[in-house]
Structure formats: C-alpha cells, structure tokens
C-alpha cells in the first residue's frame, strides 16, 4: 500500500486544522482587543469619538435604551429625552402663551424643519416660532403632535415638515427602531388608511416616565415589545433584544449590517428608481395625513403650510408623490427641490446631510411669501407697534370678491384693527 498519498492528506488536514485554530484565536483576540479599546464612556453625557461610536453602533436597541435612560430626568441622556410629544407640547404651549410677539408659527417635523424654523425666526422677528420635533421624526410623529396641539395652540400658522427619507419611517412606532444606530427613545402612533379612514394605533408607552418604568417592569416591557412586533415594521428581535453577544464587537458589526439590510428592504417596498409607490398604503396614508392636516388647520381658522424636504437619494420623488394632492386641494407648500437639487452635493452643508444655511434661508423666505400672499396679519391693538413695512395683496375675501391692496406703514403707528382674516 502506498501510504504517501494518505500521509500527505493527513498532513494537509493537520495543517488546515492548525490554521483554522489560529483563525479562531485571531477572531477572538481581535474582538476582545476592540471591545477593551473602544468601550463607551461611563458618563452618558460625554460624546464618544467617531471610532468608539463605530464599534458600538451595533449594540442592541434594548441595551442602548437602558444605558441612555437613568432613574431621573437629570441622569437621562438628551437623546432619550428628545421627541416625546406630550412633554414637548406642554412646554411649548407654556412658552407660547407668554410670548409678546405679534404672530405665532409652529413647525412640526425634524431637524431639517428645525433649521428652517431658525432661519424663519431670523427673517421675521415679528413671529413667535415654536418647534415640535423629534430626531428623524417621520410624518406620523409630526401629524400626531399637530393634532394634539391644535386646540390649545394659539399659533396662526402651522407648518408640517416632511422629510423624504423619513416617509418610510411611517411604518414604525418609535425612533428606537427606525434609527438603530442612535436609537432615539420617543414614540408616536402609527397610522394606516383602512376602509376609507385613518386607523390609528397608539403606543402603550407614550412618555419617558412610562418607558423608564418598563425598564424595571418585565410585564410592561414585554407588552411594549409585543406591540412593536405586531405594528412596527422596523422591529426585529435580533436587533432589539439585549443578550450576551452585545459584548462581541464582531456580533455588533453583523447586527449593524443586518439593520441596514432591513432598512433598505423596507425602503425598497415603497420606493423604486421611478419614485414612491403611490398605491402603497404608506403613501396613501401620507396623503391622507397631509389632507387632514390642512383641513383641520383651516377649520380652526389657521394657515397650513406643508414643507417638503427632498433630501439626497430621493430626487424629487416626495414632491411628485404629493404634488397633485397639494395642488388639487390648494394646500400651500414649499418644496426644497425647487431651491436645492437633491442629488447635487453642493446643496448640503459640512455634515453632508442637512441643507446649507443659504438654502434654509431661501425656504424660510418662501414660507414668508406664502404667508404674505394668503394671510392678513393679525394685530393686537394693545400690543401696538409694527416694526416693518409690508405689502399685502388679498385676492378674494370669501364670497365678497373684494380685491384691495393695503400698505401698512412702519413702526410707531398703533393699528386699531383687531380682526384677522384667513383667506382660502
């Protein structure tokens, strides 16, 4: 018997297993070294470096929330505190009622909308500007905030900000699932257009205190997870539940890759190269939210404005999806694609994500133009002074067909008129 081929095979197998063993040792030592070197800081208020963040993005959502949320509000991270609708509205209403500004405008949305709100504040010092937003908040968050806010809100103008990349977030109930890497704890209801009406499912956890309680109450936590599993398309036990493998850097990277795969899949279910799928329930629901926002605002004698942020990767698909609804129903809107080409990198600022400040300024001016063309400023006699020259053209006054132009003179003139008219 020729034993040499057999010996050769045995040597090759031995070599294979030796190398394989060293491969396992290599993987374990890389994992361990990176775990030790790039741990998140103990202090949740200390901003970790980019590389520390990189190796910790893939920690489970539950572990992230438990780290962020302390026993008191002071020991809870800013991210975990952000976006909760009830808290935000109560605080803003208190501030709005004490404002001495002539007019009030409220922006509902996310960071893109906030930046425009800030730009608007600069160009219109007459206005008291309120912002109710959440990190990466989808339209259902903004709509719910508006519908909760409208009765007590004394604002004259409501702005509903919609970000193209957050439309797919309408299939979620919490910022913790849509933004896996930086899980924001806030929640919001999910809307679906069913049987010709907006069906709404409210989250069982609607404020930070409830979420804090659930971290020590297993029953509540399980109920919350069950609700997410039934309603939130972004929920995935592999990404959500904490386990021992949270300590493995390799496993975190796999989890992060899986989250990206999941997000892409959800996005592809409503978006293709040709645009948003207008037959999808998400887009139909979005249209109904916009329509409902507009009609509720008008019913309460307010001016609704829709703000469309067509951001990178989405061309002008958001505008095209909502265009016919906005124009048919004469809903005033400002769309970023008319000012900033979405796919032109020069439209974006240093963070390569938000639009440049100049673009925000232009959008704010467009909002002001809409206000001027649609709304006669309300003056409170006892507040007195007007500080800028404005021209107003009012085209129609209900059924009276009166057209007139009024010029209001500059400061130091007390105006006696007390009524405001919202012209549709």
């Amino acid at each position, binding site marked *: 018997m020729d034993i040499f081929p057999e010996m050769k*095979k045995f040597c*090759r*197998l031995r*070599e*294979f297993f*030796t*190398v*394989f*063993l*060293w*491969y*396992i*040792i*290599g*993987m374990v030592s*890389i994992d361990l070294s990176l775990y030790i070197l790039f741990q998140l800081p103990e202090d949740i208020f200390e901003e970790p470096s980019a*590389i520390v963040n*990189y190796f910790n993005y893939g920690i489970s959502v539950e572990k992230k929330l438990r780290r962020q949320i302390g026993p008191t509000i002071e020991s809870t991270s800013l991210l975990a505190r952000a976006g909760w609708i009830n808290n935000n509205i109560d605080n803003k209403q208190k501030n709005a009622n004490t404002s001495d500004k002539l007019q009030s405008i409220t922006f509902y949305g996310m960071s893109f909308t906030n930046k425009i709100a800030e730009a608007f504040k600069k160009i219109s010092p007459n206005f008291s500007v309120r912002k109710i937003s959440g990190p990466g908040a989808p339209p259902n968050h903004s709509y719910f905030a508006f519908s909760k806010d409208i009765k007590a809100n004394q604002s004259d103008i409501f702005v509903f900000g919609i970000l193209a990349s957050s439309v797919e977030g309408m299939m979620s109930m919490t910022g913790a699932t849509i933004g896996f890497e930086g899980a924001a704890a806030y929640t919001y209801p999910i809307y679906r257009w069913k049987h010709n009406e907006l069906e709404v499912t409210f989250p069982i956890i609607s404020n930070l205190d409830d979420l804090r309680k659930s971290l020590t109450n297993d029953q509540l936590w399980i109920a919350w997870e069950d609700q997410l599993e039934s309603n939130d398309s972004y929920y995935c036990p592999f990404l959500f539940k904490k386990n021992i493998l949270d300590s493995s850097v*390799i496993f975190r*990277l*796999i989890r*992060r*890759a899986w989250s*990206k795969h999941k997000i*892409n899949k959800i996005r592809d279910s409503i978006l293709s190269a040709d645009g948003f799928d207008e037959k999808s329930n998400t887009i139909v629901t979005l249209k109904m939210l916009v329509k409902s926002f507009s009609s509720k605002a008008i019913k309460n004698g307010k001016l609704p404005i829709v703000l469309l942020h067509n951001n990178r990767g989405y061309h002008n698909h958001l505008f095209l999806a909502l265009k016919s609804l906005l124009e048919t129903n004469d809903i005033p809107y400002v769309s970023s694609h008319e000012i900033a*080409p979405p*796919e*032109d*990198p*020069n*439209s974006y600022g240093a963070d*390569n994500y938000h639009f440049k400040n100049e673009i925000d300024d232009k959008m704010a001016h467009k909002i002001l133009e809409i206000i001027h063309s649609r709304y006669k400023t309300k003056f409170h006699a006892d507040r007195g002074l007007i500080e800028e020259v404005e021209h107003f053209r009012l085209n129609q006054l209900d059924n009276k067909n009166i057209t007139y132009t009024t010029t209001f003179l500059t400061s130091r003139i007390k105006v006696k008129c007390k009524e405001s008219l919202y012209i549709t």
Partner: protein
Amino acid sequence: MVYILYVLLPHHKQNRMLLLASYVFYSAWDWRFLSLIFISTVVDYHTAHAIEKNNQATKRRLYLLLSISTNLGLLGFFKYYGFFSESLAHLFFMFGVQIDNVTLNIVLPVGISFYTFQTMSYTIDIYNRKLKPADNFLDFALFVAFFPQLVAGPIERAKNLLPQIYNSRNLTLDQTFRGIYLILWGLFKKVVIADGLATAVNTVYNTPGTVSSVDVLLATVYFSLQIYCDFSGYSDIARGVSKLLGFELIINFKVPYFSDSPSEFWRRWHISLSEWLRDYLYIPIGGNRHGVFKTFRNLMLTMTLGGLWHGAAWNFIFWGIYHGLLLSFYRIIASLFKKSVQANFNFFKLMLPVRVLVFFTFTCFGWLLFRANSIEQILSFTNKLIFFEGFQTIIIPQPPFATIIGLIFLIFLDFFEYLTGNDKFYNRFYPPIRGYLYASIVFVLIMGMSNAPEKFIYFAF
C-alpha cells in the same frame, strides 16, 4: 444545496445538474433571455459539427460566418442598436437632416458580451482545426452556460473548459481551501472596497454641480480601484465557486496596477478578453507582422473594438482608442530607447517604482474616459486635472472606515503577489500568521457589510 447535491451525484448527472442550475441561475435575472443563450448554443453546436464534417473551404467559411453573424447579431441588436441609431440620427442632424430614429427600449441581457464571445471562440477554434467539436449537446450547453462565469467572465476557452466537463472531477482539499479563500477574497474586494468607494465616485461623477480638481483626481483614482476590485472580485468568486465544483477557470487578473507599460497592463488586466482580442482579432488581421503602420492600424482597431465591447457609448470607444494610442506609442518609444535601456539596465530596473507610478497615472486617465457620463464631462474633468485649481475638496466624501482598512490589505496582499509572482504566496506563511490574516480579512469583510451594496459594474456588459 446545489453543492451538496453536486458532491453526491455521479459525474454525468453532475453535468446535467450544473446545466439546470446554470439556467435557473440565469433565469433569476430574466427568464426571457434564456432563449438567447439557447439560440447561441444550438447554432454554434450545429455549425461546429458542420464545419468539422466539411472539407470544402467555402462551406466551412459559410458555417463559420453563420455562427459569427448569429452571435454578433444578437450582441449587436441587444447591445448596440440604440447607440448606433441615436448616433446616426445625431450625425444626420449635424448636417441639417432630421431623421426619426426608432427607439425600441431594448433591455440589455446580462452577460451577453461574455457568452457570445465564448461561443464564437469555440467555432473559430474548430474552423482553425485547433479543437474537435463537442459530441454531447448537453455538455456543450454547459460550456456555454456554466453559471460561475456566465454573467461576468472570465471568457473561457473551449480547450480549457470542455475537457473538464467531459472528464470526472476529483474534489481535492487544496482546491476546496483555495476555493473558499478566493470566494472570501473576492467578496472582500467587492463588498469592502468596491462598494465603499462607489459613493465617493458617484458623488463626483454624477453631480450636476461644481467639483474641484482634487475631487476629480480622488474620484478617478477611487474609480480605478473600484473597477479593479469589482471586476477582479467577481472573477475571484467565479474561480472560487468553480474550484469547489472541481473546475479550474483561467486567471483573469494578475495585479494589473503594478504594470509599468501598456503591453504589460494588457497581460495582467481582464486577461481572458485581451487574449481573445489578440487571438481572434489582432493576429488574424495581421498583428505586428506587416510593418509599423499596419501594426499601428491593427492595434487601434483591436483596442477600439475592445472599448466598444464594454458598452454602447462614445466614452468606451474613446477609452479603447486611448489604450490603442498608449500601446502604439509605447512600441515606438520602446524601440527608440531600446539601446539606452540595455546600456543602463540596472538604473532602468531601479526606476521600476517610478515607471509603475507613471503608468498608473496614465491608466487612471483612461478610467476617467471610461467612467464619464458625457463628452462634456470628459472635457471638463480633463481641464480640471490639467489646470489644477487649488488643493481643497468640495464635495467628495471620505470613504468608509472599513474601505480604508480594506485598501491597506489590498495593497499589501497585491504587492506580495506581485513580488512573488505567485497568487498563493500566503501558503508559505506560518500557520499563526495565516490564521491571523484570514481572521483579519473576515473581520474587515464583516465591517464592510454595512456599506451600501452596489451592483457588479461588469454585469452591465
């Protein structure tokens, strides 16, 4: 599942199963285009037999013409109809004549450029009496449709692949380990590097707005790395999968960016295509056998058609012409400086890194022509590179962290392969070093999995 079934089946049934798997694999893209592969298979199988049976030169030539015209006809219609009809309409328009070009919105079948060339090489080899035709139609069908290399090469020669189909295959441990390594390395190049660089490249090349000279320079270098990693990555995966099945495909890339001349580049880049063009186009039309002018003509024609093979657009033609010019001028310069080089051979050898760097620069400019979206962009970007304005970037984003690490690995491993001339150089490393090397590759691959996925570039051909 295919692999488990494959290992358990006897040889003939393995071939049938592979054929079925190949058709299922292709039909996952678009089942309608299976018909085109089938047409090419049937026509070439029968024309090959007809050529073999006939001794009359005219008839043999006619059958060869039938095979070539069928394959080129399929390729021409599905790939080039739109381009030629638009170009013709544009040409007439320049002379003030408006013609209605009929646009058919033809979908390009995946891999058509590869399998048509593969089957043409078969019938041409039969005609040249270098090969006997396949006896079994189904074996020949497997040669045409073999799934690992069907959609993006390498373009296999019948004399290499057909015997492996006929004969039973022994799956060795070495083949298996090497196959797994090639698949991993191919995935690494594609996922970590090619996909990671794609965003930066697309940002610059697809922007309607302003770009800086540094943006153009970086994007062009990134693209040269992207296309190399994308294409060679796919080839590695194809070779790796084939090895697991007991097949040896030809090596398609041999660290091409360490070339110091155009002729060396084309011996290292997309080797299966360059050898195909050399054997079936350049040499038959005369090669370098009929003087300087005809050599120049033959090089230009071969490289221009080689550029056109890549795509139905003028920038691919310009890229081909550019490489034709590089090859032609290099020949002239090499012959002029031959004596000087021989006299100062050691110095010339020492200057190798400089020569490699210089030639890489020329290669990168070629990739600018290849990647540009329009002639206007070619002119604009070339202008920015020649009249370099400032050293700041405007829009190009930094590649992902995993990609930067991946590039270090790529340069290190490719450099070792170049130095040793052996693509299995790592087998000489001690087991701990090899183990850590594999662990690092897998770890960086996992890091790169969170890059946004892009389609393989060469699937578009």
